[in-house]
């Protein structure tokens, strides 16, 4: 993703930035390809998105070329555990809260989310999950009236 870089050259975080900008620009252009651009006086839905995407690609290229010529700089190491655990428990919560109700979803989110941290112990986590679920049910479901069933229906 960071593109080719000779050893000793290439600022990796900046190359990643370039890839993000160009990527957004290209996806945007691809998504708006069927839209009418219109004229300056009568802008169509595609006019401004294309301008923005064009600028993004241009900016990405400028940053990318500059980064290639700079000395090598590494990207911070990536730890997969928190990344995957947190993301998956959020997605799990979304499905659980709709189909199984708030209590199960909240317990799942906190118990699963706690796996992101290797140092947690089960007793504290269980207590925390129970406490937060009760708090959430009282404040959000009863207090603020969030339209969520508490239990599976």
């Amino acid at each position, binding site marked *: 993703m960071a593109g080719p870089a000779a050893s000793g050259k290439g600022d990796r*975080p*900046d190359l*990643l*930035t370039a890839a*993000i*900008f160009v990527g*957004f620009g290209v996806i*945007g252009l691809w*998504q*708006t390809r069927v839209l*009418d651009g219109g*004229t*300056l*006086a*009568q*802008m*169509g*839905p*595609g006019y*401004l*998105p294309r301008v*923005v*995407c064009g*600028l*993004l690609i241009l*900016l990405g290229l*400028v*940053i990318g070329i500059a980064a290639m010529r700079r000395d090598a700089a590494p*990207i911070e190491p*990536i*730890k997969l555990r*928190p*990344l995957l655990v*947190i*993301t998956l428990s*959020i*997605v799990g*919560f*979304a499905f659980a*809260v709709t189909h199984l109700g708030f209590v199960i979803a909240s317990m799942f*989110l*906190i118990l699963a*989310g*706690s796996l*992101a*941290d*290797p*140092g*947690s112990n089960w007793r*504290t*986590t269980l207590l925390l*999950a129970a406490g*937060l679920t009760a708090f*959430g049910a009282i404040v*959000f479901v009863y207090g*603020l*009236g*969030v*339209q*969520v069933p508490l239990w599976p229906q």
Partner: protein
Amino acid sequence: MDFINLLMLGFGEAITPANLSFCLLGALLGTLIGVLPGIGPTATIAVLLPITFFLPPLAGIIMLAGIYYGAQYGGSTTAILVNLPGEASAVVTTLDGYQMARQGRAGAALAVAALGSFFAGTVATFAIAIAGPMLSQFALSFGPAEYVALMLFGLLAATILASGPVLKAIGMILIGLLLGMVGTDQATGAERLTFGAVELFDGIDFIVIAIGLFGFSEIITNLERSGSAGVTVAPLTRLWPTREDFRQSWAAVLRGTGLGTMLGLLPGGGATLASFSAYSLEKKVSKNPQKFGTGVVEGVAAPEAANNAAAQSSFIPLLTLGIPSNNMMAMMLSAFMIHGITPGPSVLTNQPEIFWGLVASMWIGNLLLVVINLPMIGLWVRLLTVPYRLLYPAILLFCCIGVYSMNNRIFDVVLAAGFGLLGYVFRKANCEPGPLLLGFVLGPLLEANLRRTLLITQGDPGIFVERPISLVMLIATVALLALMIFPAFRKKREEAFQEEEA
């Protein structure tokens, strides 16, 4: 001028037990949801909107307004204590506020934020009362060309704030603009950038992006960096600002209040733009701008005063012209509409008790907020001693409920998780996501006004330099751009952010 009489009428309305208790309820709720990351005033007000139908008009509006400005107080608390802006307007507060907390000055930062906000709230309330009716005349002279120029200026000014290179910040704004275009095009009704997903036809919610980029990805990076050790808790030696803190911050509070009150007036401005601009103004007038980002008290005082002032003065366009300036004011507009009141000049003449009652309740609400916030600072500070492994599941839960409660859709939560991943990638690329939010908020307004301008002139962009207000703002924009390209200034700016990135 019988403005004193009108103000007395307002206080008479606001001081009735019912209205007073709804004011207190709103302020309390606002502080609570401002402190809780992940559930912002927009979501809360959306949830409470149907309830106000059962209240008298003024009581309901007073409560909703209280939530809005109360959240400005509360939002700063999490910004300072856990580097997590409870609200978009508190994003810049994290820069210096969190640094102050890490140096054991969390109490001082919180107190300065609360007192600055109270002062700003008081001034802004009187600004609405005195200048509201008059200033509406000035805003009336703004055409779409002026708005375009103003928004370009605002967006560019924000790039100075982002840590890291200006080019990256501009890129983040562009991505924000692009994300703001997702959904149904306002002018033509065409679907844009939706990937065919029906859920995206109404656009992406601000909350989804904010919680994803700041809430979720922050949790992930925090866990990655420190594991179970959690946020480093600096020793808290002093909970009250020193005399030195007061001396350094009073001028910043004054400037922030002035700037915030002005920027709150402008559509698209509001609390977020105000806090960003106040921070960059402070940095410019400061004798040692390189210290910003390392825990400077002015860096907390100015944006906090500004966002509170702007939160209140942003009611002016709504109350006097009937035009909501941001999505929060759009919520307030619908709260009025529920009771069959159309905000605008007619309310000022036909139902003065609504306008003046609301104005008076804002000042009372600000007083209540200081009473709620200052004694409880000790309580917020105690939150810092809670290890992160106990804190992050709570943040995670509030974020998830907050996103889900907007539309009760799985899609929103999954999308927010996606933005969490995106935010994680941004962090790995050393890109600061703050400007993205600004681009996202201003994008639709910018496009609408640009279209309107060029439709009027039949495609002639010359209007931007022919209208004096627009010309002044464009010159300021170009000057800003020139400053940033100017090597000496760039070097100084890089120095200013060096500490923060370390």
